[in-house]
């Protein structure tokens, strides 16, 4: 056993990739997330081709080796997600991108990653379902993001709405995953994935990059190290650092001991995971608001739909003087119930336009049912709502 804690020479991979120089670029959403990932220090991409996420993978295959990272096309999505677990414990940040059917295949590994508290980032460029559905955009995987993995594990999921946010929120996803030692999902619609837009890249020192907490930095010696203890977010020793970590995803005590099972130990283990994320929802989750002052009706939206929702709101103000409020969930999970209740007082109707048959409508209703007369879902399948369509549904309801 090493007397002194020391870092592994892990990653012969360069930890300082060659970032995009500050400036303005014209990129596709599927590509911008890769630039964001590299900026966050991601070194490994393991993926499997699937439409409409495949541009992400193609772009990663070009970019990762250029910066000293590694890209691998795995045999399937199951293997891709499992490889992220290996890479993450091997000491680097790792990511993949997929779409509906592939996302389903990754659920087992996501559950294992939650239980073993493995930081990793999965980007889901959502296509329409169920089944093969169609390769057009949807927001149909957002409940799967929260509940798709087996067991009772919490998750962090973000919803970017632009190419800029594909870059920004991917960095944020890595930061959240390292900060909270948990898998983080970026839930994107095909619309945003395939969107071409300007991307403003700030200089590297303007970007906050968070690294996982290490036992070495806290002066914890291998013999005293608890891979799942010490704090609500345990410091993480990577493999190869002499800490002799026994990775487990079975119900475990803080030191990874699995032989002393009891219902109490089970409860403690899973409740701690839940509290880590749900108990810190106010630190983790972000929402964006506009025009809320004195509004009778508001739109709560996320992702690509927030772009047309905003246009609908501006049109309504200019054309008929109808004052609609705007709330955008930047973070889908953990669900920011408290924050929503803080900003939404007494309103008449809450409209929830979604590219599914009404999924986020449910947690929104649960959070705000006593704050409004009615929550109205505005679903759309296969196509992004137009501002006119959103407005027509709103007028239908309130006239």
């Amino acid at each position, binding site marked *: 056993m090493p007397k002194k804690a020391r870092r592994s020479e892990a990653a012969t991979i360069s930890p300082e990739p060659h970032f995009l120089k500050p400036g303005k670029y014209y990129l596709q959403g599927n590509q911008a997330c890769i630039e964001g990932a590299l900026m966050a220090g991601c070194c490994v991409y393991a993926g499997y081709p699937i439409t409409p996420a495949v541009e992400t993978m193609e772009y990663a295959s070009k970019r990762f080796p250029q910066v000293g990272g590694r890209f691998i096309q795995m*045999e*399937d999505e199951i*293997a891709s997600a499992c490889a*992220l677990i*290996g890479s993450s414990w091997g000491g680097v940040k790792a990511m993949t991108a997929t779409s509906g059917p592939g996302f389903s295949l990754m659920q087992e590994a996501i559950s294992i990653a939650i239980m073993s508290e493995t930081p990793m980032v999965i980007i889901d460029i959502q296509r329409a379902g169920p089944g093969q559905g169609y390769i057009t955009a949807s927001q149909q995987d957002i409940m799967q993001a929260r509940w798709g993995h087996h067991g009772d594990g919490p998750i962090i999921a973000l919803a970017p709405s632009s190419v800029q946010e594909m870059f920004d929120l991917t960095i944020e996803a890595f930061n959240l995953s390292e900060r909270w030692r948990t898998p983080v999902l970026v839930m994107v619609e095909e619309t945003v994935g395939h969107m071409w837009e300007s991307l403003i890249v700030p200089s590297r020192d303007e970007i906050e990059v968070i690294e996982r907490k290490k036992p070495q930095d806290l002066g914890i010696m291998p013999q005293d190290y608890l891979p799942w203890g010490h704090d609500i977010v345990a410091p993480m020793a990577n493999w190869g650092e002499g800490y002799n970590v026994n990775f487990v995803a079975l119900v475990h005590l803080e030191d990874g001991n699995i032989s*002393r099972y009891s219902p109490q130990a089970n409860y403690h283990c899973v409740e701690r995971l839940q509290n880590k994320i749900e108990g810190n929802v106010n630190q983790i989750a972000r929402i964006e608001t506009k025009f809320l002052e004195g509004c009778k009706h508001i739109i709560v939206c996320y992702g690509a739909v927030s772009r047309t929702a905003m246009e609908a709101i501006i049109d309504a103000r200019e054309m008929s003087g109808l004052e609609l409020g705007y709330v955008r969930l930047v973070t889908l999970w953990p669900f920011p119930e408290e924050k929503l209740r803080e900003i939404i007082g007494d309103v008449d109707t809450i409209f929830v336009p979604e590219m599914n048959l009404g999924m986020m409508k449910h947690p929104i209703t649960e959070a705000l049912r006593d704050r409004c007369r009615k929550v109205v879902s505005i679903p759309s399948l296969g196509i992004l709502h137009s501002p006119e369509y959103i407005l027509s549904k709103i007028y239908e309801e309130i006239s």
Partner: protein
Amino acid sequence: MKRHPMLKYLKEEGPMGPRMPLIFCPGCGSGQVLNYTLHAVDEIIGEDKIRKEQFLFISGIGCSGRITSHYLNFDSAWTIHGRALAVATGALLANPAFKIIVFTGDGDTGSIGGNHFIHACRRNIDVTILCLNNGLYGMTGGQHAPTTPIGTITTTTPYRNREAAFDLCKLAEIAGASYVARWTTAHPRQVIKSIMKGIRKKGTAFIEILSQCPVHERMLPVALLKRFKESTIRISKTEESRHGKTPIGEFCDVDRKEWNESYQEIIDQFLAVNGKAHEQIVD
């Protein structure tokens, strides 16, 4: 009492209590394979310039999976059923210096993890795979496996198994593994030698170890070990002179470029033109 020499590589105690005894049933082959593996690792640490911290043990689920579960005083991972090789691939992408030993079973490798298995061999990733083949699913209660011989009664083949069994060594060889061998738990010295060869081999080494399950086979461990001796024959013997016995020995030992070695060539190209890399892609 004299302590077992390999106990130095096991965790008898963790910060939160004892981690012993091992979970294995009396007479199980898993303990033997663990013993052989630690002997091989011990020799490698002694002879080669490989540090203990470089070793990483990864397993899937099943009886073989429990070898890494929490007794090993090494970095180890007890991962997902069939997916140990996918996790190992990821670990090697992060750090090619790892010396990875994967413990797996016949169901783990041949059935649920079959795809990961053939692709690990095809890519020739630098791992040593130890496949404990007991011909059934031990942990779940003795169901038939893709390695169960035709005609065997198990808990899910009450009317005898009708499916042909996989030859995992042939599969590994054809898929591209650099080193392939088969032994049994009754061949300790050969197994240790093979594992050492496997660890030293740059690329995928697949070592199948026929391992007894006295509980589900309802036989004494000694009788099962004896049967291993009698029912196996060296691979060097011609097909006709094997009389239907299971061939054991080294099936292949070749040198082929390992995945990371090969990928490093791509990275090196760009290291040469560093700094300009991004401009080539983003216009």
